[in-house]
Structures are given as C-alpha cells and as structure tokens.
C-alpha cells in the first residue's frame, strides 16, 4: 500500500505536495498539489485549493479544484468552489456550489 494517508484526527496546516496517491481522512488547510489521484474520505475536510490527476470526493472541500482527468463528487459529499476538469460526475445527494469548467 503505497502513497500518503492523512488519517482521521490529523490536521495539516500548510502546503502538501506529492507525486503519489493521497488519501485524506483528516483535515488539510492550505494547499494540496498532487501528481496522482486524490481521495477525500467521508471524514475528510479540505480547506484548500486542490490540484490532482483525479479527485474522488466523499468528504468536504472548500476551495477550487483543478484536475487533469476526472472529478467524482460522491453522495453525501460537499464541495464549495470552482471545478476545472475534463470529466465531472456528481452523485445524487452530493452538495456542490460553484462553477464547472470542462474545457480540456
């Protein structure tokens, strides 16, 4: 199991940069830049702009999202911010407020 896991109960304030998969079950405030897939678990809270190759959001995001491949907003998730991604899916029950830009 490779990659970075920010577990529940962990709070990161600052800048996270990575070139591998990142899973957030805790809290990230600042900036999240990943050259790989980002997964926000249900318990995850991200108050940061996110850059990633793909994003799966099951938790809460406040910030702009720029993703190369695809963004999946899962049921029960929350996103406040603009999304720029080639593909976006929003599940029934996901809360989303912001603009979507699907220009690739």
């Amino acid at each position, binding site marked *: 199991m*490779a*990659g*970075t*896991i*920010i*577990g*529940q*109960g*962990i*709070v*990161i*304030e*600052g*800048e*996270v*940069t*990575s*070139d*591998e*998969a*990142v899973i957030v*079950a*805790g*809290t990230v405030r*600042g900036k999240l830049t990943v050259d*790989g897939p980002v997964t926000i678990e249900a318990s995850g809270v991200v108050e940061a702009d996110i850059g990633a190759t793909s994003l799966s959001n099951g938790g809460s995001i406040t910030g702009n999202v720029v993703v190369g491949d695809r963004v999946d907003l899962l049921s029960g998730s929350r996103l406040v911010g603009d999304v720029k991604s080639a593909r976006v899916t929003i599940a029934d029950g996901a809360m989303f407020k912001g603009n979507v830009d699907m220009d690739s």
Partner: protein
Amino acid sequence: MSGSRIGRGTVIRGAVRGEGDLEIEGRVEGIVEVEGELGVSASGRVVSSDGGAGTLSARRISVSGAVAGDLSAQEAIVLEEGARVLGNLRAPSIGIRPGGLVKGHVSTEGAAAHGGRTQARSAAVSPKAASAPARAAAPERAAPPVRAAAPARPAPPPSRQAPRPPTRAAARVEPAVEQAAPVARKGAPAPVMPALKKGAKGAMKKQKGAR
C-alpha cells in the same frame, strides 16, 4: 484514530498536528505534533520550512531517518540504526541504537514530570536548541572523521606518495556513514590489497629511471 502516513513522494510544508499515529516516509518542513506514535522511516526527513530546525512531539517517537530539530516525547524516543538527528532529545526514556547519530542535548529529565513539560525545563533547554542548528549543517559530515579512523589502513610503506592514499580512503568512506559498521569490516582486509602498489611501482620506476 487510523494510522496516517506521509509517503515517500510527499512533501508537507507547515504544521502536522492531531491524534493517532503517524509514519513519515516523505519530507516534512515544519512542525509535527501527534498524540500517538510517530515514526520517521529511513526515507523520512523532517526539517523546518526555512531550512532550520523543525520540531517533533509525540507520545513515542521512533527515528530511522533524518531530523533537524528537537524531539520531545511523553514516553520514549528511540533512534534506530541509520537515524540522524540534529537537535535535542527529551523524553523519560531515550534509546539510541548502534548506528544512530545525534548531535544535540539529550535529556531524560522528563521522567519525573511524567510527560508534563514544565516551563522551566523548556526554558533551560531552548538556548541550546537555538544554537544547535547553527553548529552543523549536515550530520553526515560531522561523523566521518571518527568513522574514517577505524578502517584506516596500516601505516603505508614509507614512500613519497604516502600522504595521498589516506585522503582517498577518507573520501570513499564519507558517503557511507549509515553503513559505518559494514564499512569498518570491509576496511579491515584492505591492507591485504596493497593500496599503494600501483603508485609505489610507478614511484620505483621513476626512481630507477632517475638513477
């Protein structure tokens, strides 16, 4: 409470705080404070964002990688083989295994306080903490002279080229601080291979030629 991990390819600039355990395999520039166990793997690095000292605080800390900063644990600190710490250690129980390098102040005084960090103690330690980072930029460099002495070859035959080979030997040993013990073992049989043979031959030829 799940375990957290900062992977090899990840860099965090800022503060990492919280409950639960944390394993650092990547790089953290800043402060790390967790309530559980904190591990710094061999690939892990902790420094401050401005290149100075970061700080680590946890219930238990285990270090196999490199840390520039102060370590404080409520229970124990263990420096494993290959650990390099440039900073002060404070915990009721501190272990340093062979091959672990430290440059800083080590204190087990915290035992009586039982994890509590009294203001007086931290005040007493802090001046040293401030001076520590300035003293040495790289722990690797601080160590080699000591290590290099062990594998040093027996006195070379008296020759005009004698001064050079020891310098080379030291240079070879320098990058391998972490494997200090194996290097010493490898170094032992070295005298069997006369290090000066090539140079000595050349010197002898030159001498003959001169005559």
